[in-house]
Structure formats: structure tokens, C-alpha cells
């Protein structure tokens, strides 16, 4: 099927096969489509064997970081401790709206994946943390958990195996940063959503200091298909010459594009065909200027770069960006890149949890400077100041929100510098209140002198 439009013949619908099919939402409907067979199979397997199938399949985290899922699960040992599985359904990365559709259309698919993962990591309790704005996804997933529990699929004797598998659904309250896995744990525990310093990693001390595995909605929903059909089936999707990216991936497409929506393709799909053929290319009479392919936190590509990029983890790295969360944001020739990058910076300034100074100050000043350039009040020196701030924000903080703010600024300045320069006032330089030209920021040596 597909939603909001039918699947394109070149898509590979696995997770999205039942998007738009309301019957798949109910337990009966899900079972009729083969649902919960994978969970039953997994419950009959040793957890280590489940971990190994997923490891062998090459599945990598779909939340943004791309960490190998089977490897993550294998950190969890039968040590007799309380373990938790925490599903990250906080989806708030601008450009990303795939988990929303998974939860709206196939909530049982997610619940099955969560239960299967719980078994695989020796956990008896799972939490699904859903962002506060997701009213419908929350209701659908809650209803699915209720149905599965009433049917004995979940509970103290899951599917009659004697195994305890309990799933709780938890609602967030508005904060992008809670999608960062350690902030997610703090938020669930009833704290401010500040990321934690790592180590300790969640597999050692996670929720309530107990070993915890955190996975994205899409990652967990893919797992049952792998257990059911085998690692080789999953590995067959992808470029034969790139075993590091396997399976299918949901890409959310938005911005200035003819057919926005979710598309599921096999890893290794050509980005050019994707944008122009599947998504219908630009709006009539316009041209694509730029694209951010993996959610707002990854480097911007020019239209030319989009034409040669390959859609998998390594393909996007080769193109100078990242696959990230798979949120594709398209900009056309009507857009001012300064304005839009300033708007992205404002997003990060608003969402910074403010515990690291580089991030708190860096996101705020980046926004202020970009907005004054946008408003025609920028001076030449501002561009170097932006890069110096970006440097100070990268690789120095507790989490990577800070880096994520710097990324579009640095790549935007590199690839669309002419748009920034066109807005700069050449007749002016930044001066102090006493009228003295402002010193170049620390660490910047190659500043050209500016006329006062």
C-alpha cells in the first residue's frame, strides 16, 4: 500500500507494506498478515541466537547513529540483573516523520519488535517513550499493547512460554533533546531531559542504573522480519559491493518536493532516481537547489551532489554527508539559504538543554549572527566568527546537539557562501561601543583587515 500515496514500483515495502491499511492496526488484522509469528519463533530460541541472527543481518540503528543492532544487543549478558529495553519514539529531528507512520499504521509491528528485543537482551520489562505531541501514535501503540496483553502475547506468561514480557508506554512533554538516548532515560525517570556523561554506557548503567538497551522505532520494527525471514534475506537488500549497509530504509521526504511522504527503498538506491522519479522532483517551474538527506543534523548537499549520491550509510558519507535518520529536506531555488540555515540554528538554540556552555552560548550566538546577516545587518567578519563558533561547538560537549547546530552552518557557508556574502554590508565592520573594531575571534588567524 503506502501513505500518503501508493508505493512506487521501485520501492521495497517491508515496514511500510501496510501503511494506509487500517485493518493492519488491530491484533486480528496483524495476525492475519503474519504478525507475532516472529515473536513466537524468537521465544523458542535462545536469546544469544536471536542476537546472532540480527548481528548477521547487518541491521544498523535507524535513529541516526547507525550503530550495529545485533552488536548492541550482545552487550547484554545473562547476569541475573534487571534489564530494560527502551524504545526511542521521541522522533523530533526536523525532516523525520517515519516512526510516526510506523506507530500510526502498524503499532503491533512495533510492539512485536519491542517484545522480541526484550527477549533477546534478557529483559522482562520494556518502555516505549513517545514524544508528547504524538497523540494518535500514542493512542495506537497503547491500544496495541492493551490488545496484545489481553491476548496473552505479553504479560507474565508471554505466548504461553512462561517468559515475562511487560511493555509500558510513556508520553514525553516536548523537548527534542529527549531523543538523545541518555536524556531519554533521564526524562523517563522523571527528571529534566539533560543528557548524561558517557561512560557509563546504557548497557552498563542505564534506566535506574540497570543495564539497558535503547533502540529506535524503525530498528525494532525491522527485527521481527529478520528473525522470521533470516539474515540472508535481509542482507540481500543492498549493494552487493557494500555489506556494511543492508536491508531496507524508510526515508521521509519534505520541503520543496512534488510528492512529500515516506518512501522505503533498499539500501544503495540512487539518490537522483529517488528524488526525481519516486518523489516527483521539484514543484512545477522550480529547480532543486540543495538537500539535507539525513535529518537536519547532517551536512547539506548541493543539487549536483544529490545527483551522484548513493543512499546508504557509506554512500552518503562518500558524498560528504550522512544517512542520519533518513529525513530528506529539499530546498528549491525560491529559498534563501541564509534564512533557512538561520531558522535551523534557531531550532537548535531553542532545543539546547543548556548544560554545556559551548552549546548554550554557541547555538544562541550562531542564531543571533545568522539572523542579523539575514536581515542585512551582517559584516564580513561575521562569517569567520560563525566558523570560529562552529569550531568551538564541535566535539566538545556532552552530546552532539551542539555539533548538529554547527553542521549546517559550516556546510552551508562552504557550499552557499555567495548567498551569505550577497547579504553582507561591505561598508561596515563590527565595532565596540567605543568605536574600536572588534578583534577577530580567538583561533582565527587568516582574517582579512576590514575597513572601519
Amino acid at each position, binding site marked *: 500500500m503506502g501513505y500518503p500515496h501508493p508505493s512506487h514500483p521501485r520501492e521495497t515495502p517491508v515496514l511500510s507494506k501496510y501503511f494506509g491499511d487500517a485493518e493492519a492496526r488491530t491484533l486480528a488484522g496483524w495476525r492475519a498478515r503474519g504478525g507475532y509469528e516472529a515473536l513466537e519463533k524468537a521465544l523458542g530460541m535462545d536469546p544469544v541466537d536471536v542476537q546472532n541472527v540480527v548481528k548477521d543481518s547487518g541491521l544498523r540503528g535507524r535513529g541516526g547513529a547507525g550503530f550495529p543492532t545485533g552488536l548492541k544487543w550482545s552487550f547484554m549478558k545473562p547476569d541475573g540483573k534487571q534489564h530494560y529495553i527502551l524504545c526511542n519514539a521521541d522522533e523530533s529531528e526536523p525532516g523525520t516523520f517515519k516512526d510516526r507512520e510506523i506507530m500510526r499504521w502498524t503499532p503491533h509491528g512495533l510492539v512485536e519488535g519491542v517484545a522480541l528485543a526484550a527477549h533477546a537482551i534478557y529483559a522482562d520489562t520494556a518502555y516505549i517513550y513517545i514524544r508528547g505531541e504524538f497523540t494518535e501514535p500514542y493512542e495506537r501503540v497503547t491500544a496495541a499493547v492493551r490488545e496484545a496483553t489481553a491476548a496473552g502475547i505479553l504479560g507474565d506468561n508471554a505466548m504461553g512460554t512462561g517468559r515475562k514480557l511487560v511493555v509500558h508506554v510513556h508520553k514525553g512533554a516536548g523537548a527534542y533533546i529527549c531523543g538523545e538516548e541518555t536524556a531519554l532515560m533521564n526524562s523517563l525517570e522523571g527528571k529534566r531531559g539533560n543528557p548524561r556523561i558517557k561512560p557509563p554506557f546504557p548497557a552498563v548503567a542505564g534506566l535506574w542504573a540497570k543495564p539497558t538497551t535503547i533502540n529506535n522505532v524503525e530498528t525494532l520494527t525491522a527485527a521481527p522480519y529478520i528473525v522470521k525471514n533470516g539474515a540472508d534475506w535481509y542482507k540481500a537488500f543492498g549493494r552487493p559491493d557494500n555489506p556494511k549497509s543492508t536491508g531496507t530504509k524508510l526515508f521521509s521526504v519534505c520541503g520543496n518536493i512534488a510528492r512529500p511522504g515516506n518512501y522505503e527503498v533498499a539500501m544503495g538506491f540512487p539518490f537522483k532516481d529517488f528524488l526525481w522519479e519516486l518523489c516527483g522532483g521539484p514543484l512545477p517551474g522550480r529547480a532543486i537547489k540543495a538537500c539535507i538527506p539525513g535529518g537536519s543534523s547532517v551536512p547539506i548537499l548541493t543539487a549536483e551532489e544529490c545527483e551522484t549520491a548513493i543512499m546508504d550509510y557509506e554512500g552518503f558519507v562518500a558524498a560528504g554527508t550522512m544517512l542520519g535518520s533518513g529525513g530528506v529536506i529539499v530546498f528549491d531555488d525560491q529559498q534563501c539559504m541564509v534564512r533557512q540555515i538561520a*531558522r535551523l540554528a534557531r531550532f537548535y538554540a*531553542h532545543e539546547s538543554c543548556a548544560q554545556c556552555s559551548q552549546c548554550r552560548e554557541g547555538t*544562541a550566538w550562531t542564531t543571533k549572527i545568522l539572523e542579523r546577516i539575514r536581515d542585512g545587518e551582517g559584516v564580513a567578519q561575521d562569517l569567520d566568527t560563525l566558523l570560529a563558533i562552529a569550531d568551538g561547538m564541535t566535539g566538545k560537549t556532552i552530546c552532539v546537539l551542539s555539533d548538529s547546530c554547527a553542521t549546517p552552518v559550516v556546510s552551508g557557508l562552504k557550499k552557499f557562501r555567495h548567498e551569505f556574502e550577497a547579504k553582507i554590508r561591505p561598508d561596515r565592520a563590527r565595532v565596540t561601543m567605543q568605536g574600536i573594531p572588534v578583534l577577530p575571534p580567538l583561533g582565527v588567524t587568516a582574517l582579512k583587515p576590514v575597513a572601519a
Partner: protein
Amino acid sequence: MSHGPSAAGGALVRAPEHAHAHEPYEPVFVGAMKQQLDETVAKYPAKMAALLPALWMVQESRGWVSDEAMAEVAEQLELTPAYVKGVVTFYTMYHQHPVGRHFIQVCTTTPCNVCGAEDVVKAFLEETGCGELGVTSSDGKFTVIEVECLGACGFATPVQINLDVHESVTPERVPRILAALP
């Protein structure tokens, strides 16, 4: 977060002109609500984890989270009122002031922004009579704010009114959406 010291700030809900009327505080967690809270607490190994759900219950029954309500939640969960306030102020969805009966949040983050989200904001400000972001209309019906990515970017511009999301909103559709509200 809503109240970070960030110099860039964010769209905040303004306190109404006349400070909150001081009627005697009626506790939220009695009867069925207390039972619901107890059931929620049982889902977690620590009482504190029921804090976000408890604040949601307060907001659903009272429309906002007052200082008195924070104190009540604190007592229920064996926390201090200051701790609860610290958590409330971190999350953007808890209202620390009364808001309009219809709380309208328009996403203006980049993906929606390139599709004309700012025009949608303007249309809401005009049609509701709010005039300004974060200000409640004089009839108490509406408050309009800009919000960051609602996770529905392919349906630009998504607008969240109380708990419901309206997809693909254009300025032209605004009057009809408002007219259909109860």
C-alpha cells in the same frame, strides 16, 4: 526546553494581564484520579518516574499546571515542589499559565518554513484576533504559538490544536479550521 538562558529565546506563552485568580485550590488527585496515579506509579520501579504522567493528568484536568498543582504532585510523589518546578520548566508542553481554550501550535521549523509556514502563523494570528504570538485572545478562546518540528514535516504545515494535529494547513484553510472548533 522552554526557559533556557539562550540568547535566541523562543516563543513563550505570556502570563495573562490579571494574575491567576486566587480561588481555594481543589486537589487533583482524589477518587478516580488518585487511583489512576497509583496505577501509573506501579509501572515503574521508582515513584519519581510517574512525574511526567502526573503533570499530564494535572494539565488534562485543569488546563494548566499551577504552583499549587506542582506542590500537590510533589507531595504525591515524595518530591519537593522546587524539584517539580524544575522539571515543569524544562518541557515545552506544560502550561505554566492559563492558555486559550484552543491552544494552537504552528510548526515553523525549516522543512515547514520552506513550504510557507510563516504565512500560516500570520493567518492564525489574524483570524483568532490574538494579534501576537503567545497572547491569549480577549475572549479566552485562542492562544497561538510557533512550535519546533512536530514530526509531521511531510504534511506541511502541521498545526497542533490542543491534542489534535491538522495536516497540510494553508492560510486559506485557517478560517474553516477555526470555525469547526467546538
